[in-house]
């Protein structure tokens, strides 16, 4: 049992999301940054899609009422019973220990995973909180959480070296997109503006969508409104203001603004971790290229999982003036 002693910001239980109910208007939800969240799960020996805690900017303070193995993922200061401990590492907590998670130095979302995963009521097949529709709720002080039963030995002490962690410290990011589908609602200039300009993430951004500020994207004579059609996380809608809104994991399932592009799956975490003020530029790729990028990312995640499980070794290699990480198994 874990007791939340203080919850300074938005703290929710999330897992890989809710599929199969979008045709009833229910958003997917799930990890905003599935790359970090899956690593958090791997660090404690869980499958990648297990329910864990997602915090916005500042983490909670909590007490363990039974021993547990946990890992905090994010660029953040972590203390266990007042002693600083490493993030991106799994630790053993004993009964009575207090965990304090500070404020992220970079990025927006941090994760706390527990070996065995957080026990929760699955609603429509998922633990992911989507409070607007009564699917879970934001956690608050004095809430208690249960962790799934699991053998803890061998789950602690797993560590992900800095070079293997995603870096969200840049205030300029490039996000790759597949153009369309509503390109006929934009002028050629409008599409060029979108692909060649820099946009800034505004504070009016949340799990539902990120609003961007920047040069106005010109609509064609067909205008900004379409007959309401499907939306997915990553869809870039451009309403009458000409400023893009990128739909995120809590996106409504359908929408009535023309979509100029869709952020590719592999780059959605990068955008999710972009703080207000971050400069975002968009680069066009084909669906085929997007798929290759995603395949490479999945291979990396798989290698990280095997590395944390002790099945692979990782070597830092410098060649041709660049740093590479080399994974090697037993020969």
């Amino acid at each position, binding site marked *: 049992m874990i007791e939340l002693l203080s919850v300074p910001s938005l703290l929710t239980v999330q897992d890989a999301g809710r599929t199969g109910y979008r045709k*009833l208007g229910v958003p997917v939800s799930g990890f905003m940054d599935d790359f970090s969240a899956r690593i958090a799960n791997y660090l404690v020996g869980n499958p990648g899609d297990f329910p864990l805690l997602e915090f916005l900017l500042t983490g909670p303070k909590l007490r363990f009422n039974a021993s547990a193995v946990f890992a905090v993922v994010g660029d953040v200061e972590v203390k266990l019973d007042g002693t600083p401990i490493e993030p991106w590492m799994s630790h053993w907590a004993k009964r009575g220990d207090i965990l304090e998670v500070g404020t992220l130095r970079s990025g927006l979302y941090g994760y706390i995973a527990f070996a065995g995963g957080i026990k929760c009521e699955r609603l429509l097949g998922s633990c992911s909180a989507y409070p*607007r529709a009564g699917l879970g709720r934001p956690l608050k002080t004095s809430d208690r959480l249960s962790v799934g039963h699991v053998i803890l030995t061998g789950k602690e002490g797993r560590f992900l070296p800095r070079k293997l962690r995603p870096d969200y410290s840049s205030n300029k990011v490039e996000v790759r997109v597949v153009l369309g589908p509503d390109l*006929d609602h934009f002028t050629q200039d409008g599409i060029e503006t979108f692909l060649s300009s820099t946009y800034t993430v505004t504070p009016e951004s949340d799990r539902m969508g990120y609003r961007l500020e920047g040069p106005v994207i010109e609509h064609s004579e067909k205008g900004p409104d*379409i007959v309401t059609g499907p939306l997915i996380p990553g869809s870039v809608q451009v309403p009458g203001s000409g400023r893009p809104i990128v739909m995120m994991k809590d996106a*409504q399932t*359908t929408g009535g603004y023309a979509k100029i592009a869709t952020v*590719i799956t592999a780059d959605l975490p990068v955008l999710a971790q972009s703080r207000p003020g971050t400069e975002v530029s968009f680069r066009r790729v084909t669906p085929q290229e997007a*798929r290759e990028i995603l*395949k490479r990312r999945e291979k990396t995640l798989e290698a990280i999982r095997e590395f944390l499980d002790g099945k692979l070794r990782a070597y830092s290699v410098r060649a041709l003036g660049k740093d590479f990480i080399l994974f090697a198994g037993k020969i």
Partner: protein
Amino acid sequence: MKNKLEKDIEDVFGMFKEDLHLQRLRQEWDRHFDVDDYRILPLGDSALLISFGEVIDDEVNARVHAVARAIEGEDFEWLVEVVPAYSSLAVIFDPLKATFEEVKRAVEPLLDVSAETFKGRKIEIPILYGGEYGPDIEFIAEYNGLSVDDVIEIHSGKTYRVHFLGFLPGFAYLSPVDERIATPRLERPRLKVPAGSVGIAGRQTGIYPIESPGGWRLIGRTPLKLFDPKRDPPTLLQPGDEVRFVPIDEEEFWEIHKAEWEG
């Protein structure tokens, strides 16, 4: 001779002439206008969009649902889910299991499925019109030069078809209301619209399943629960259902409300 729209599309795509992928997109458009009545376009790397034009029409929508069911009926291992809307649907797939082209090839033969096979249920929605439950009904009457009773009679005198669910869990997009009661949205949306509120926006009518902000003109409220994650299925309405609004009085409203929300 090319019409203006085709010209416009040519302009949009002209800039990417050397790009193979966009040439293919371009061909999709040409096909759409010259031969076929549909187009299939990528919606990112994990979904494709099948569109039968930009229309709100019962027949086109019936086809959307027939195609959605046909796709769901196949045993595609890459299929995640299908999201139908008015005249288009998204096919969400696992990009690690199939490419856009493969998914496109797999769904194309299913697009000519007969739409007549699709029949929804008939559902009656009790509704308490006017008063604090429908604070805009007088405006709707006045705007259209009618009495409040006329508005109720016209709104409840028609069978609506659920075209799709979206916007909020359980929010049903219904076929259009009679032109005589069409009314524009509020200039300033309300910050809180209670669950069950029935609204009109232009010729659209719909029910707010959960409390949310909203700009539709409120005509009344139903005591029924439109979305309950603990029920299976979680939504009262399903795409294709035929809906009739049945006027009730305040006593009936609270009786049903109690059974639905407390029972």
